[in-house]
């Protein structure tokens, strides 16, 4: 038996097969065989995501960190499912009927930049200087300008994040504020939501987007496995919402 990718853990009673399963007592690991052609991160990442995405639509699934490869089915049982059985079973119990929804927002770049220039005299001044000089001559000024703009954008992110958390956290069991990544990124928050309340949550996101006046576009991503709420180690104790 060859090496296997380990994607996640589901209850053994989950009837749907999203990937090959390795069963142990009342839990099962979702695995797939390591193929020779797999060895680029992008391929494996797609596979990992597909398995977890499908599983999360119906099952409670604990995601395993991307890139985890073990020495075969027996290894998955001996080194993972058996020694951590009780903790895994408890986690599955705790997340039963709950999914993660991630809300990401991005700025309208033009509106954002206009706002930054209007709000910061330093940016406006430096911008004029940079525009007056040929490209290479202003290299360090450009970096400085970008740095000032980045700081202003960061503050806009703060505010957008507060709005999103303030509005949506009450509709969730738990919320986690993450660092938005990317130039236009405004907001990144994760919410743990009862499966049957997902639609209502989506509606609230949609409504909130309207309230933000078109400056921030919001996307509600999921249902996802509880990536942001599955502890680094299951020994970390019960979270407050459990």
């Amino acid at each position, binding site marked *: 038996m060859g090496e296997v990718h380990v994607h996640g853990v589901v209850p053994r009673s989950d009837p749907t097969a999203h990937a090959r399963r390795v069963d142990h007592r009342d839990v099962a690991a979702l695995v797939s065989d390591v193929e020779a052609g797999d060895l680029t991160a992008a391929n494996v990442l797609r596979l990992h995501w597909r398995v977890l995405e499908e599983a999360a639509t119906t099952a409670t699934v604990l995601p395993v960190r991307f890139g*985890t490869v073990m020495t075969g089915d027996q290894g998955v049982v001996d080194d993972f499912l058996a020694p951590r059985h009780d903790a895994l079973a408890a986690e599955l119990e705790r997340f039963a009927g709950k999914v993660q929804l991630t809300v990401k927002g991005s700025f309208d770049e033009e509106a954002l930049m206009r706002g930054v220039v209007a709000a910061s005299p330093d940016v406006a001044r430096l911008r004029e200087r940079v525009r007056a000089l040929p490209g290479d001559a202003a290299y360090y000024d450009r970096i400085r300008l970008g740095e000032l703009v*980045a700081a202003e954008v960061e503050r806009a992110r703060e505010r957008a994040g507060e709005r999103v958390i303030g509005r949506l956290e009450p509709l969730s069991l738990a919320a986690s504020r993450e660092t938005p990544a990317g130039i236009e990124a405004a907001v990144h928050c994760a919410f743990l939501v009862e499966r049957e309340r997902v639609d209502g949550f989506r509606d609230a996101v949609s409504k909130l987007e309207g309230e933000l006046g078109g400056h921030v576009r919001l996307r509600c991503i999921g249902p996802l496995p509880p990536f942001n709420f599955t502890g680094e180690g299951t020994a970390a104790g019960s979270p407050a919402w459990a």
Partner: protein
Amino acid sequence: MATAQATPRGYIERPRPSGLADVIDIILEKGMVIDVYVRVSLIGIEILTIDARIVIASVDTYLRFAEAVNRMDIANQDGSAGLPELMEGITESGSKSKTKGALAGAKETLGLGDDDDDDKKQRTRTRTRSRSRREDGDG
């Protein structure tokens, strides 16, 4: 205004999870960690490459911001039409954090985006050194 294009794969029309590009940061950073002594990770090297990109991304990000703010032709327009609500109270000490352009970088690194990212922003898709090296090695 520009709300028509707000949801290319909108949550309303399609209740399915979004593409990989939307979740790549989550997938790379989150999930249960199995004891390092019993797992065999094949992919660690490329993950490190992504980390390296993240560091490099910050100067790159500043330059892109500078470019973005320069591109704007504000001179003959009303400069006040910005983000009044979000920008208010910007006066002092905005230097709290350096920007993270990380995931844009990671997406490029992994060569993702073609089939998963139908966002309008077409970033440069640098196929990475690590990836092509790996493929060379395989082939």
